[in-house]
């Protein structure tokens, strides 16, 4: 890798493998795959320096379809593997693919700690609110009452909000995307890649077989403008087809509310300005939910701090500067005596 290589810009197609894609026809995973391939091409990623790590689930089959290095590991544990890879070779660009079951049920703890430690990874959590691969049981993000093979009378579990959880875990980058929003998703993923540290991206993904249209409320193309808000740092949180809706902080209720510009004397000044670095705002934005609020998409929080792999490496380098690595001397440290 020392000789100068001519870097030819790759296209999304260059990131395809020869393996037949084995998701159900119509599965949202196809669109995400395309979005990732676009993001890789757009950001000039090199296949040989890129690693996709996943757990187990439909979503976790992802690495087989990307012509980079890939490790399809075991259920829920991808963050451990990814951490090991990154600590061994911090130059690699490591992506983590997981599902709501893989990443939040069995793998919730590893997700928690990889976010807390801030390991430099791009983490994509495909949230279809269901266990796809095992044929449709409810997951930690499933809505209450959902009838599935393991909840024939309706689930009584309270669902988790992935982004709220991520913030609670101390994530320094939290974003959200929608499988079929192929205009926005590659941009969000590019931001994730650019961010040094753990970038958490929840992607709403439609499982056409076991949980079809669960996000239909706000993914419907026709009404999307009124049901989604795409955040931009430093800009007022205004949305809607007529660009007339906005998010305001109501100090009395101590909560966000949707207001209409021009109604009840609401002006632009009332609308909150998105501040990517404000954790309190991020919590509020992650908590609000359709249909009362718009689905919040794009980069919700981005507030970098030193990444774990960087700190670990830096500490080692610092010690190396002051201590010589002399193995024989190590063995002879402390009290020794000579027999002759």
């Amino acid at each position, binding site marked *: 890798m020392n000789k100068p290589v001519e870097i030819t810009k790759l296209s999304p197609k260059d990131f395809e493998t020869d393996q037949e894609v084995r998701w159900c026809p119509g599965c949202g995973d196809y669109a995400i795959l395309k979005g990732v391939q676009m993001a890789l091409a757009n950001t000039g990623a090199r296949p*040989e320096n890129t690693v996709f790590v996943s757990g187990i689930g439909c979503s976790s089959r992802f690495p087989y379809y990307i012509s980079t290095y890939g490790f399809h590991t*075991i259920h829920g544990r991808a963050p451990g593997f990814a951490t090991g890879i990154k600590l061994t070779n911090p130059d690699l660009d490591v992506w983590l693919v997981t599902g709501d079951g893989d990443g939040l049920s069995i793998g919730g703890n590893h997700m928690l700690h990889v976010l807390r430690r801030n390991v430099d990874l791009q983490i994509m959590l495909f949230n279809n609110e269901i266990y796809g691969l095992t044929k449709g049981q409810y997951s930690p993000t499933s809505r209450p009452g959902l009838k599935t093979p393991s909840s024939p009378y309706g689930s009584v579990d309270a669902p988790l909000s992935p982004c709220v959880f991520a913030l609670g875990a101390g994530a320094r980058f939290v974003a959200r995307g929608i499988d079929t929003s192929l205009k926005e998703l590659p941009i969000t993923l590019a931001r994730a890649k650019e961010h040094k540290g753990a970038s958490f991206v929840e992607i709403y993904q439609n499982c056409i077989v076991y949980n079809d249209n669960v996000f239909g409320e706000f993914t419907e193309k026709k009404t999307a403008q009124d049901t989604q808000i795409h955040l931009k740092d430093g800009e007022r949180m205004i949305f809607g087809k007529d660009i007339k809706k906005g998010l305001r902080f109501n100090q009395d209720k101590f909560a966000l509310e949707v207001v209409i510009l021009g109604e009840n004397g609401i002006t632009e000044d009332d609308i909150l300005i998105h501040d990517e670095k404000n954790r309190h705002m991020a919590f509020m934005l992650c908590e609000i939910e359709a249909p009362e609020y718009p689905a919040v998409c794009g980069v919700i929080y981005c507030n970098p701090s030193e990444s774990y792999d960087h700190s670990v490496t830096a500490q080692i380098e610092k010690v190396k500067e002051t201590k010589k690595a002399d193995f024989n001397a190590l063995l002879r440290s402390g009290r020794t005596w000579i027999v002759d």
Partner: protein
Amino acid sequence: MSGQPFMKIQNSAIQELDSVVVRFAGDSGDGMQLTGSQFSVVTALEGSDLSTFPDFPAEIRAPVGTTFGVSAFQINFGSVEISTAGDEPDVLVIMNPAALKVNIGNLRKGGLIILDEGSFNIKNLKKAGYEINPLDDDSLSQYDVKRIDITKMTVEAVKEFGLGNKDALRCKNMWTLGLLLWMFGRKRQTIIESLEQKFASKPELAEANIAALNAGHAFGETAEMSYALHRYHVNRYKEEAGTYRTVNGNQSLSWGILAGSQLAGLKLVLGSYPITPASPLLHTLSGLKEFGVVTFQAEDEIAAICAAIGASFAGGLGMTTSSGPGIALKTEALGLAISTELPLIVVDIQRAGPSTGLPTKTEQSDLYQAVWGRNGDAPLVVLSVSNSTDGFDVGIEAVRIATKYMTPVMILSDGYIANASEPWRIPDINDYEPFPVKFHKDPEGFHPFLRNTETLARVWAKPGTEGLMHRIGGIEKDYNSGHISYDAVNHQKMTDVRKAKIDNIANDFPLQKVSLGTEGGKLAVVGWGSTSGAIHQAVKRARNDGMDVSHIHLRHIWPLPRNLEELLKSYDKVIVAEMNAGQLNTLLRSQYLLDTTLLSKVTGQPFKIQEITDAIIENLGGIK
């Protein structure tokens, strides 16, 4: 010195001993571990062979004076070869009633007790559960008891430094150490130096401790007559020439694996989660950053092993360390390492089970788990560590095998040797043949499960290499392409090749040697792991007594050495001695259909030499 009539000596003459077992016992706060290890250092520096056994309580700081708060340190040293910390102490140093209560049962009849009379007050006696002061009845009549008011004399000795009562009493251990040094004719200088170093920032503490040490020493001189104290001499042990140090099992193993990674030319990446008695490996390696070692204290044992496997995938040497319950948690991930055929070092410092068990006690009961404890047909390599120094070579061997054959290697050690120290002739790393890993580079015909036809190892191609992008995982892989395969015939083939690869490693292992004795004969005692010292001594003694018995000690648990069957079948009888309910025994029986005799001990304590001796005698029909 067990066996020697320790007490029958002439007054005031210096008695020559081949070996002696001293046990220091007191409250957790009495500094017994420090006293013991300082005594060991001096003993080692003066050239005796030795073996130590720190025996501390499970509680961090149990309430003062209780029996479960008793901390002890045993040392066996001699001018002869020492290989265990000794069956029974010859000398018992007792700092409080609880220590007496807990330890008296094990003292050799006729043994010497040096006790701090000052601590035998009502409060302490009650805490220890004594209704009657054992100094006042005849319960100690079979021993030679030296009642010395160490408390008072220490306070006296350090008075001039103006310490508080607590700090003053903390010097009791140094006073006692001083006395012991006098008894065994050992020099104080090294200890004085280390006290000065330790208390560099608090010189008054240093001075007080030194004063106590000297006072204890002086007491020996002056009280020799009145207390009928005696002096002993233990000569140097004629060891091979070289530079020596003491080392415990966790140290030697940490260094061995690091040495292996250096010889392989790999970055060592440890993923671990603290657990007794394995944590010191994490601690040791965390301090060796100058060697580029990466240590990752994970959120749990699962993340720890996964990070280690990830490290190996990325081209480092992944390693993970734990003890039984933690190893259990690694089971699923270990299957992935086997399925993806990545090198990996898994260290299990065994402790007494099942479940939480006795975390600070020793046992060898994870052999089943190591060899068989996984779903699916999932073979790997299992090596074991036999004593405190052996870990160095085992560590190197493990790395060599793991990288040459692309396989996880499990190393079994245990809580006894983890903490026990022995003198070690320090090797020169340059004497070891390097075995640098050759990563695959050639895109021509590449797929990730291309195999070396001889070793059956698959190629190791690391991320970052141009043209070798590939994807692996735990689903069965096609033999010919490395892609996912659900094909029936292929699954059989892959299962077979995984097995054949591991079985074949036996050809890379040395032939099993007889540790002591002859090939063939009436009886062999087979052991593995930390029982080696006890078996060795028992067999040695039995052979000295003319018995036809040999000692075979296994380092290679799986695959077994290729000549082992033949070797074992060359004896009329085979005893398998182990600190579990018969796990190696089951393994050997299943492999060789050999009607072995099991000598099992599951008390959380190492074997005594005598226990093995008894089994030898019994199995030889009482006749030599």
